[in-house]
């Protein structure tokens, strides 16, 4: 198992190098002069020229890439024109909020999706299954930003149950910084009230974000459970007179979950992409909102930084999923 993990981590290096090349290529897609974008919309020609020299934009492309890549390693991810701070520093401040949101949404999707998919498979082609099918198709088709807006309209504005937007009330003390995840930090500080408040703020964006992966997990789980239920060993277990519950929870669930798990890894990427939309709707101060405000102010380096950051996160999460998959399924690590 250790050598499996070590091999997978080594394989990560070329992927991350490739990722930086991709991001570098995007920065060179800009029509005209990338220096003009780095300098901002109101820069004078002299400023643009200075930046062009400073970033070595007059040098050949491989040299430029080398400078860019070594800069990244030294923590130079460019400057945000809008916040007037290094992009890496901004990302460090905004990332915990995004992680909290994504993890909460993923937890909701997995915790609800696996039992619902199991249920749909057991009641296959009967009404609970059909209902799940239509509802999950609807959930997949629902734009997350529109769903968020409907949630705001219903639960925050009309009913007043939950806060409209933001992450924490401005007039209350934020729990002491530990992980940056407010719910966890509040719990660590023993402040149950702050944890409850943070959860209230987290609820609507997390639910809005979780619905589409939830629906996908339900559908995957249903399909893989049906497949497992048709295996010979399940028939044998039935013939041996094992109880339905024992068969489901001891034998079927484990096999069906491992097929669903890979999809969960893929959907983590989909969630990371979705943060851009949901954070914009709920003014959630994460890297997604950071990116969309950068778009509005034509601040290019933060967009590039967010792309790189999300790419790296996605790669790391897929590595974690592979490791969990291998732990669940010994056949994988023996390959």
């Amino acid at each position, binding site marked *: 198992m250790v050598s499996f993990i070590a091999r997978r981590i080594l394989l990560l290096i070329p992927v991350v190098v490739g990722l930086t090349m991709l991001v570098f290529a995007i*920065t060179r897609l800009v029509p005209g002069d990338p220096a003009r974008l780095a300098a901002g919309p109101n820069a004078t020609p002299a400023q643009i020229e200075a930046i062009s020299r400073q970033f070595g934009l007059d040098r050949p492309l491989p040299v430029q890439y080398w400078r860019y890549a070594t800069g990244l390693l030294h923590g130079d991810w460019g400057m945000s024109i809008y916040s007037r701070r290094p992009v890496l520093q901004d990302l460090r401040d905004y990332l915990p909020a995004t992680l909290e949101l994504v993890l909460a949404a993923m937890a909701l999707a997995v915790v609800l999706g696996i039992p619902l998919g199991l249920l749909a498979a057991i009641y296959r082609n009967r009404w609970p299954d059909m209902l799940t099918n239509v509802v999950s198709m609807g959930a997949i088709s629902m734009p997350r930003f529109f769903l968020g807006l409907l949630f705001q309209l219903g639960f925050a504005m009309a009913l007043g149950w939950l806060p409209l937007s933001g992450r924490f009330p401005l007039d209350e003390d934020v729990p002491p910084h530990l992980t940056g995840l407010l719910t966890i930090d509040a719990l660590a500080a023993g402040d149950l009230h702050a944890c409850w408040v943070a959860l209230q703020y987290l609820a609507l964006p997390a639910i809005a974000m979780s619905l589409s992966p939830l629906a996908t997990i339900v559908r995957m789980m249903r399909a893989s459970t049906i497949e497992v239920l048709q295996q010979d060993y399940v028939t044998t277990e039935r013939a041996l007179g094992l109880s339905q519950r024992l068969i489901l929870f001891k034998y079927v669930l484990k096999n069906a979950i491992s097929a669903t798990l890979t999809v969960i890894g893929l959907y983590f990427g989909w969630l990371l992409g979705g943060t851009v939309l949901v954070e*914009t709707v709920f003014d959630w101060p994460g890297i997604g909102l950071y990116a969309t405000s950068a778009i509005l102010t034509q601040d290019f380096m933060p967009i590039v930084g967010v792309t790189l950051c999300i790419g790296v996160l996605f790669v790391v999460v897929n590595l974690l999923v592979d490791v969990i998959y291998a732990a669940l399924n010994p056949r994988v690590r023996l390959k």
Partner: protein
Amino acid sequence: MSATSSARARAWRRGFYRFRQSLLSVVGLTLVGLLILAALLGPMIVPFPQDLAGTVHTAARFQPPGAAHWFGTNELGQDVFSLVLAGTRISLLSGMAVVAIGAAVGVLVGAIAGFFAGWIDELLMRLVDLVLTVPSLILAMAVAAALGPGIVNMVVAITLSWWPGYARLVRGEVMAKKNEAFVVASIAAGAGVGRLLWRHILPNILSPIIVKMSLDVGFAVLTVASLGFIGIGVRPPTPEWGTLLAVSRGNIPDDWWTAICPGTAIFIAVFAFNLLGDGIRDLLDPRARR
């Protein structure tokens, strides 16, 4: 000849029978038909064509839905129904363009990689892996931000993140097919690579490609709207649904219709294409039918 054609006709009839059996697929097909009709006729039959050009009616701002304005009016006094109806063409056209171009590029890359194998395959597939390391919406966002606003740039940006899925699919299919007897036979008969791929292999791997394309259209429409919502892509007054929603989300709760109508339009379009896509998959891919 006539025996095969009548067998084929029978298979088609059976397929359509199965398709009709599934209520959801029929609902999807009907909705997609209506959407295409709206996309074709929309800009010509809107009740207030001058609003599409950005005309402002200050006196008619924020009128709730009623007989004159079915979906009410927005902050500029424009008829929301006209904007949403006209937006159908933009959303459908850009969504379909993304899938069509993405599939064309992906099929080409996948076919070359699968057929020639070796270092070409290795190179192309590493490129595919690379593009897939960034979630598609984020990649499209970054590229669109770099290229600047405009429908064409938006379609290009989304397509850049869209082709790898097809390349992977087609590569696998081509590799599976290229050693089959009919391909070996046509190589022996002296068929060139282009002819071989186009006339012999491609027709035999068409159905998984069609299935993927039909499942993808809804998602492409959704991605277009998402980029519009975060402020990349088309600019007002072009009535793109996501952009309309982004502009009017500040109007809720009082003038909710300005946001709810374009939002619902996105949902219905994506839902319709997804239902239809599911139906087509069940029809063409017997393994998926359960």
